[in-house]
């Protein structure tokens, strides 16, 4: 049976909300990716971040063990450098094996909390 997934994914509409309300870390506003590696080989990922007015930054290196999923907050990425909050960005995710990527934005900046989730756009 073939393994579902793709090796190149794009999240073009990133922007980590600046404000949060409520207890942390549960209610921290965030941009987050859920990464699924359904295959039998550990996945090595490289994320490149694109901005509107400055050069791309990356790669941010991540691994996902075989037959495991992992959730990663863009808020917490630090090497090679932290993403600014409240700034538009796009993310290009390359993996050496097929994976599935879901993107979620959780915005608690106002009393009425907002949640948005979507499968990222797969290219290859």
């Amino acid at each position: 049976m073939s393994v579902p997934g793709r090796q190149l994914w794009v999240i073009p509409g990133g922007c980590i909300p600046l404000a949060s309300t409520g207890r942390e870390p549960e209610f921290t506003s965030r941009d987050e990716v859920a990464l699924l590696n359904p295959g039998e080989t550990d996945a090595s990922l490289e994320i490149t971040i694109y901005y509107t007015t400055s050069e791309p930054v990356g790669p941010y290196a991540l691994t996902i063990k075989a037959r495991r999923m992992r959730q990663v907050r863009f808020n917490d990425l630090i090497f090679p450098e932290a993403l600014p909050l409240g700034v538009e960005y796009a993310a290009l995710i390359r993996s050496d094996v097929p994976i599935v990527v879901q993107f979620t934005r959780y915005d608690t900046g106002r009393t009425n909390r907002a949640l948005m989730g979507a499968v990222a756009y797969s290219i290859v």
Partner: protein
Amino acid sequence: MSMGDREPQSDSWRASEHDTREGYQNWSGSLRFRPSRAVAPRSEEELAQIIGDASRQGRTVRPVGSMHSSTGIIATDDILVSLDHFRGVYSVDQKAHRAEVGAGTVLRDLGKRLSEIGLAMPNYGDVATQTIAGAIGTGTHGSGIDLYNLSMTLVGGSMVTGSGAIKTFSLESDPDLVRAMRVSFGTLGILTRIELQLEPDYQLHRQEWCTTFDAVFPRLCEFAAENRNFDLYWYPRSDEVKLRCLNPPGEGPDYSSFAWLAESRTGAPHEVIPKHSDLPDKFDEMEYAFAADAARDCLLAIRDRIRSRWRRTVCWRVLYRFVKADDTWLSEAHARETATISLHQNSSLPFRDYFADIEPIFQSHGGRPHWAKIHTMTGAQLGARYPMWRRFGQLRRELDPDGVLLTPYLRGLLAPQMEAAR
């Protein structure tokens, strides 16, 4: 006495392999300078000749280790001295748990070599890429309420003074000199051989526990007391914390009722205490040391400030550590049980505004800055924080009467001290 290479060489940065025409920069890249000449003497006598000549010619000489310092203590425009040829373990006293080592020995190489002969350093900092002389001279420390900074391992050795004299010393015969030498950042003499007080080799179990700030802060002292090594990372963008605990195998407390275990491994101290020796990306750092009670208040104050003003750009954790009080004249932990707070920021991002905003909070809590990390305190301000400041100045005048061992930054920092000592 010849001090040729005696041990396998580390792949760490070496001043002697660098072209002075290119200029030098520290590890993070935040400090740049261009010495007139870089030299790597092969013997103590050769170093004495270099310093003696410099003294007669009105020049200056600055030793450099692994370039991890971020203040101007290493930035010279004149002669830069590398201790690349002073590396390795020279002699061992197994009964006293002491070893004489080359001043330019890199900590991670030292740890391996000591382990082979059944000895170990009592502690390390978070990285082990510094030279032993650099770590001692700047008051480098790890974390634990019963653990001194690394400088306290210095119990004797040999150095070349600012007048070019070779001087041997020991804690037993020259206790005040050792108390001054331990944290003197190369301004009393250039160390060549260092006698270390060590411990029989041992194993440590490293555990890293993740939880929330509120679950930990009220019990901070309790946690510090029940772990051999203990420090705390606070993450500004989530208000989470990581507790980093090291203990003899089988003796570590279980925090699973309120935290999840992120890491668990056992090894020799040089293998499990330094965690970030090989970080691929650079960062800059500001650290201040406080009396332990003041540090708790300070942590709360800067947490509020960072959350309200700096979360947009600052993701890097804040590091909270403990250091046992000592009697070293210019030690961050001089005469008070100490906790330190360190700010970090990616070197590729603006960090000076962030540090400048937090530094007054550090200073208002009685903080003493780390000698090798970014700060803006003047000599006059520092003199008020160190009871032995003037005494240090007197000793400096004796050992380096012409200021041969001063960089431009150090001259500005220590000039008031020198005047006060007259």
